[in-house]
């Protein structure tokens, strides 16, 4: 019984050994192939890096009331709103998508964030179009871009255009911070106003106040009026247009002038080397008027250009 079983047992042992060897060989071969394939894959990746997986872009042309509504839409439709504006791609951070709900007025459109040198009339036309395209404009909550990221105290908000540095950064809830540079009258105009005797001092924020005998100190400063004006340009509302902001600035500056006694005088040395005395309130009113006129004049570096820049920079139409 035992002998009869002996050849069978031997055969079984041989078969098991063979199976084991085949199994080991197959695994070895598989490992080698895996390593080879992995090396080939690595080589392919090194030569042609694959782009990271991108979620599908939502193709609906629609605006949302708020970021949460947009996020709900993206989750439900398994897509994201990327840097497309309608059918166009936004290729750089100097441009943004603006557009009203197509069921209401206008359609999405890419617009420059930067100002252009347009005439006053053209700028007014721009505003009339913009407020129709963007009837529900809200403060921009998007992450800082190349332009907005430049808002740092002591640096220029827009190095290409601005003459003066940012003086203050003011928190505005979850929206972009207000960027304040005070009375940003272009340096060339300040110099000319000084030469004409209208600015007593070459101080853009305090043309009639401090620095000379009889001065009123910081109480005649236009800084607070101008800071409020900066915030006004950066406030997104179709009801608050450039004229509203500018007229409020004049009103605030005149209130500063009114705080000066009628007979108060300021004495300073003029550009011809002589001591000159003026009625402080009178000069204050004229300085306020000139600054307001400068904004009305819609200078490329002054009025409407700045308004357009700030509105397109700080406001979003599609959340």
């Amino acid at each position, binding site marked *: 019984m035992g002998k009869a079983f002996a050849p069978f047992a031997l055969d079984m042992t041989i078969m098991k050994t063979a199976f084991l060897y085949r199994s080991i060989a197959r695994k070895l071969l598989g490992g080698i192939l895996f390593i080879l394939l992995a090396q080939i894959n690595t080589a392919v990746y090194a030569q042609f890096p694959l782009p990271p997986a991108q979620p599908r872009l939502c193709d609906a042309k629609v605006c949302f009331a708020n970021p949460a509504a947009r996020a709900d839409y993206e989750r439900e439709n398994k897509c994201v709103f990327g840097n497309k504006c309608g059918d166009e791609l936004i290729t750089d951070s100097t441009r943004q998508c603006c557009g009203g709900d197509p069921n209401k007025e206008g359609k999405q459109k890419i617009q420059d964030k930067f100002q252009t040198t347009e005439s*006053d*009339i053209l700028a*007014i036309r721009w505003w009339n179009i913009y407020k129709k395209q963007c009837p529900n404009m809200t403060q921009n909550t998007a992450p800082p871009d190349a332009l907005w990221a430049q808002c740092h105290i002591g640096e220029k908000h827009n190095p290409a255009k601005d003459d003066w540095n940012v003086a203050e950064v003011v928190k505005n809830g979850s929206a972009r911070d207000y960027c304040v540079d005070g009375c940003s009258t*272009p*340096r*060339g*105009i300040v*110099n*000319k*106003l000084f*030469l*004409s*005797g*209208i600015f007593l001092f070459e101080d853009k924020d305090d043309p009639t106040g401090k620095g000379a005998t009889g001065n009123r100190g910081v109480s005649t400063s236009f800084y607070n009026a101008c800071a409020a004006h900066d915030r006004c340009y950066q406030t997104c509302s179709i009801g608050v*247009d*450039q*004229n509203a902001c500018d007229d409020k600035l*004049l009103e605030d500056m*005149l209130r500063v*002038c*009114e705080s000066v006694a*009628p*007979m108060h*005088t300021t004495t300073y040395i*003029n*550009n*011809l*080397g*002589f*001591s*000159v*005395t*003026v*009625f402080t*309130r*009178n*000069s204050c*009113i*004229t300085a*306020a*008027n*000139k600054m*307001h*006129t*400068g904004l*009305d*004049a*819609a*200078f*490329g*570096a*002054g009025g409407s250009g700045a308004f357009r820049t700030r509105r397109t920079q700080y406001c979003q139409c599609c959340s």
Partner: protein
Amino acid sequence: MIRKIATLLIFSVVLCTNSMAELTLIDSSREIRDTPQGLANMGKDLAYWMRTTPTKENSSIDSRSISFQSFSSRGSSGQKKVMLPSMPLINFPAFKSQQAKDLIVVYIGQGGKIHISKINSSFTSVLKTIDLTALIFANEILSTTKGYVIGGIDADEFASLVFFDNNLAKKTKIVLPNKKRGAVTSMIFYQDRFFVITSHFDATSYMHELSLSGDVRNTTQLSGGGATGIALANRGFAVSYRVDREVFIERLDGNMKSLWTKKLHGVSSVATQMGNIHDMTSGIAWVGANNGKLIVYRIDDKGNTLHTAIDVSSGYGVPPSGSYMSIALGGNIHIRGEARKIDGPVDGSIDSIYFIESGDNR
């Protein structure tokens, strides 16, 4: 009380001895804000008052239109308007013409740039506009047979002149001698000779004779700073300047040699920075402000005061720019400016004022 009575007595004595007269306010009109103004003296008793006339368009104020009317007109009679390509910000420099020709206006517009616009003779359109980059500020414009000369300050803050041909096509800039920071404050034509007064930041001033191409022939230092001057018909020149806190008027002959000097007043409180001088044929007149009031002196050719007129009743202070526009016509002096009443409203408005001084309105 005693001091007040004494002051009144002294004032009355001064009135009696110096033929002090009161200036008469002829016209005033309320402007919604300070508006650039200027004077174009075309010669032969023809002068225009230039000013921007704000209009409300598209809910924004548009002040690009400039109006021209006779300097001695009342209200808006004879007013003509021209639309400028850009809104002017600061008063127009005085324009003085040697002969009838199209006038040019120089103004600070977009972003602080200076523009020159040539206006057609009927004051209906702008013929040409160019930028003036050679100067940062212009004080005076003179038209000559060869073209136009604009005097002011260049970018390095030197007193400079820019010469243009009649078509504003060719230009030449010259910086006046004595490399000191300053400005051209007067340009004068006298017997086919060209003179320029420069005033400098160190309170000095000079009178230069130049060729019409800008070559300096002769220079004389004046006795004070912040100087202005005019030519007197065949009698040389009259110049006015300040020495510290005193204002003087001086007569010079045709070769810039002094004939006499007279102190007008000591500067008190609010005063004009530079006065205007006029040739009154039989003498000289000085127009300016002192102690917060408009004042006119008439002086004979020997330096004796004939009349002094002071605005003591209108209630208007000195123009914010510190200067008036004035011309002499038929023995009268016509004076315009923008001013506020000391206790007036603080709503940004300002009044255009117009005075006439006739020399004998005692």
